[in-house]
């Protein structure tokens, strides 16, 4: 069933200039329609892996294939490849000098050469899906964090990507705004979008993921079904990691 595999990574290596190896031989297959959540301590290479996939970081070894086509080590083709990979950043990165609608339609019009009317029609449909129809003429500075992040997701979706990459997209949000963003991602996964998600929202990860990847020190230490991972992690490191999120309650009473 190899035709099912959308993204295929083999033996991916990445080091920073300082010589620190950040990814040490990652092997990963993502099937079409699959939702993968990457968990792991900070500095384990989760974000770097996402950034390598859409070419924001140069890789030092190995290969990345999308739809069977080699996409790594091919800087001239990057703009074309990136149209198939929607990326959402932690800090939203909307363009501050453009309205919401202009943010969303810029790439469809300029990169994919769509007509303005068609691009705007599609943008409005997407805005409706995330309940932001009335904000199309607003500038990013007028939106809340959660609204900005939903616009950023819509902006990526407007390119009709084959796969979405989410890099800690709720980490900068106030707690009460996290939910509205996660709901949008949940809906996307239900519609069959292929997704690779880096997050620290464990409850969300458990609910949305088809598979959890636990990364540690530049390797995928563990991979499995969410229920199995959260109830009975196989590795010591994963147990430690999950333990970080638990708190034992204060001693009750003073018997």
């Amino acid at each position: 069933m190899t035709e099912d595999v959308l993204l295929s990574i083999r033996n991916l290596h990445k080091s920073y200039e300082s010589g620190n190896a950040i990814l040490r031989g990652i092997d990963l297959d993502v099937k079409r329609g699959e939702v993968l959540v990457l968990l792991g301590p900070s500095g384990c290479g989760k974000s770097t892996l996402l950034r390598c996939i859409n070419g924001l970081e140069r890789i030092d070894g190995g290969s990345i294939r999308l739809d069977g086509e080699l996409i790594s080590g091919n800087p001239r083709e990057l703009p074309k490849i990136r149209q198939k990979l929607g990326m959402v950043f932690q800090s939203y990165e909307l363009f501050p000098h453009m309205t919401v609608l202009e943010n969303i339609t810029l790439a469809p019009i300029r990169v994919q050469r769509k007509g303005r009317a068609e691009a705007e029609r599609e943008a409005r449909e997407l805005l409706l899906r995330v309940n932001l129809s009335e904000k199309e003429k607003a500038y990013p500075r007028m939106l809340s964090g959660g609204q900005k992040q939903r616009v950023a997701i819509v902006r990526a979706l407007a390119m009709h990507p084959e796969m979405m990459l989410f890099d800690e997209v709720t980490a900068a949000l106030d707690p009460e705004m996290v939910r509205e963003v996660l709901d949008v991602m949940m809906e996307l996964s239900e519609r069959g979008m292929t997704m690779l998600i880096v997050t620290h929202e464990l409850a969300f990860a458990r609910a949305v993921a088809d598979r959890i990847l636990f990364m540690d020190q530049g390797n995928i230490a563990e991979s499995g079904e969410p229920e199995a991972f959260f109830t009975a992690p196989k590795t010591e490191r994963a147990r430690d990691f999950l333990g970080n999120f638990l708190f034992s309650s204060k001693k009750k009473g003073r018997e």
Partner: protein
Amino acid sequence: MRASAIELFSLSSLLSLQNTGGRERGIGILFDGNNFERLMGGLFVTIRISLLSAALSLPLGILFGMLMTRRNPLTKALSRIYLDFIRIMPQLVLLFLVYFGTARAFALSLSGELSAVIVFVLWGTAELGDLVRGALVSIPRIQYESAAALGLTPLQTAFFIIIPQTVRRLIPLAINLVTRMVKTSSLVVLIGVVEVLKTGQQIIDANRFRYPTAALPIYGVIFLLYFLVCWPISLFAGCLEKRWRD
């Protein structure tokens, strides 16, 4: 020009109501002979020096600003020295240096106005360059990345994302620099350029006996002229700033 003439006229009728004594007083001096035309001629010199300097500083400042964002330590050090030198030196010293200094050192006789333009361009390039540098580095790296992630080419990113944001941050500051140039151009009197302020002085001096109290109205009018030149520019800058606030 016409609008300001009308304003001046109404001002003069206002002041003439208070005319007393034997000698003529007040703003009437403006309409004596060709005084008003002379003042306007002086204003034209002021505007010519400052706008020509601003126009030349614009491309040079943009180049200088881009140069300052380079990582090369030599360009960094040289541009830093240039910027600090220009900032530390009072403009008047620079004017003397160029006007008298070149005459001494290179036996070059530059006209006062040319010297003035050279100094203001040196100054404008330094100041504007620093503004350009600031605007460029203030755009976070990840803005480039998010544009790239959407499939925009580097050229498209520059054109649709980076340059519009840089210009929006830059234009209000650059316009304020122009008004500073207009004001600072009054220093060129001291190297013998007859601009609006000097013309005013000449008019006052030449009419000392007929209009002994001419100083106040003449300088008042000059104040008004500076104001009429700079105020719309400031308003425009403020307006852009408000519209482009992000």
